């Protein structure tokens, strides 16, 4: 007889027995030890039918493909830039992924990104040894100038963005600040100095209280008190400026790589030689053959 020892959404810590018996299945953040399921990291437990998993509460950012991050240029290389990503691994921004214009060999790279510049970039590739490649080619990806930078817990980023960007657009609308949130926990805010401070306070508050129920209402009340404005929770605008990635508030687990079934190489049969006299007719014939 299996027994669950925690309630849904309870906080679990390493070594804690989450369930007893063989009826439950351990997923992310939990593992099986004999007939028990134990937690192996700090998180909020999620029970989905038989599957028990933990959503992490703390920990450094780990680079993942297709994440939009904010990074700081720390070095200029022969053909690109090295960018610090608020994680154990720095990223490389290669020349061809930096700009849509053709950058000639030997150009002064500081014309594009100088040292200590902040950039919004997308992770294009992460290797098994966590070598990271990023790109600044794409909508919303750019160099940041002005404003202020804020570091937050990367696991709280989905809460700051909210469902379909509802939380961040609420802050944007009330404070009038431009806000960009990187998945790596770096937030860029630009606006009126007084409003910037309020935006910072609000984001810190979300970070501290995200595990308390009624977050949106608490934040709405806090924003109204601070700005003295009435907060209307607007419908999220799709692809709003600098926030095009916010729809993915809850990041889905990466799909496991499935190797396609091995197909033996079959040498194509040699095409019968035809005279090159009536070219257009032949072309259609060849296409037809392929189908």
């Amino acid at each position, binding site marked *: 007889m299996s027994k669950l020892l925690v309630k849904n959404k309870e*906080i679990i*810590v*390493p*070594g*804690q027995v989450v369930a007893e018996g063989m009826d439950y299945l351990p997923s992310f953040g939990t*593992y099986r*030890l004999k007939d028990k399921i*134990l937690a*192996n*990291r*700090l998180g909020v437990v999620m029970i989905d039918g038989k599957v028990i998993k933990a959503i*992490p*509460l*703390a*920990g*450094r950012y*780990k680079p993942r493909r297709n994440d939009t991050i904010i990074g700081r240029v720390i070095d200029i290389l022969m053909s690109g830039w090295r960018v610090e990503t608020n994680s*154990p*691994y*720095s990223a490389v921004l290669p020349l061809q992924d930096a700009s849509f214009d053709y950058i000639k060999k030997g150009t002064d790279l500081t014309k594009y990104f100088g040292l200590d510049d902040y950039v919004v970039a997308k992770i294009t590739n992460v290797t*098994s*040894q*966590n070598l990271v490649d990023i790109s600044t080619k794409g909508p919303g990806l750019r160099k940041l100038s002005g404003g202020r930078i804020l570091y937050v817990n990367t*696991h709280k980023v989905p809460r700051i963005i909210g469902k379909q960007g509802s939380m961040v657009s609420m802050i944007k609308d009330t404070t009038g600040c431009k806000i960009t949130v990187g998945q790596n926990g770096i937030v860029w805010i630009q606006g009126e100095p007084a409003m910037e401070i309020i935006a910072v306070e609000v984001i810190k508050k979300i970070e501290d209280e995200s*595990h*308390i129920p009624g977050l949106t209402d608490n934040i709405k009340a806090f924003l109204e008190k601070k700005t003295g404005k009435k907060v209307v929770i607007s419908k999220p605008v799709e692809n709003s400026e600098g926030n095009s990635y916010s729809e993915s508030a809850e990041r889905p687990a990466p799909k496991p790589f499935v190797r396609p079934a091995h197909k033996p190489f079959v040498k194509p049969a040699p095409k019968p030689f035809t005279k090159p006299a009536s070219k257009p007719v032949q072309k259609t014939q060849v296409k037809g053959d392929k189908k």
Partner: protein
Amino acid sequence: MSKYKKRFDGRKFDETRPIEAEAGVIKKADGSARFKIGNTVAYAAVYGPRELFPRNQHDPKKGKLRCNYSMMAFSGTGERIRPGPNRRAKEISMVTEKALLPVVDLSDYPNAVVDVFIELPETDAGSRCAGICAASIALADAGIIMKDMVASVSMGNIDGQLVLDLDYAEEAFEDGDVADIPIAMIPSTGELTLLQMDGFISPKDLKKAIELVKKPMEKIAEIQRKAVQNRYKVK
């Protein structure tokens, strides 16, 4: 018959000193903890996983755990303790690292490092055990993947009497043989990750001591887990 019939501070023989534990005491660190057992106080701060320097220490298979144990200058009995890495501190740093390594899983972080700094502002024996307890709370608080907490406490043998969690006065008992055995354990599996000894004990008593220490270890692990959970408690 043992000459040590009653403990100096009135505890039972299988009773630890009062324990307090708290997580998240150092705001800038990725994870931190304070662990107090009697008059021994340990602070631990965890930074990382972060980039590892010097590069020749890189391990491309898995991340590295680096511990640093240090007693503060004023932490002893009045004699100034010379700060910095002396022979004793280096050894304890090393055994702490080896005590924690079996539980942490850093295979996701090749070439990176997790730094653990343990500082003791006040000591009254059992400082490496307090340090290990604090460090494992701090590691859990930092969101490191670990299969269990590491609980640690010292076991002793004072003139034939087995005693849990010695304080300094007991370590310095003069009317008989004293053995001081710091032990660290993974409570879920019962594996020992630290077993050192100072003094004399018979093999039979040592086995008995290891058996006796299991229950208090579970209690300490429970306190450690509570400490991490309390940080997120809704007020």
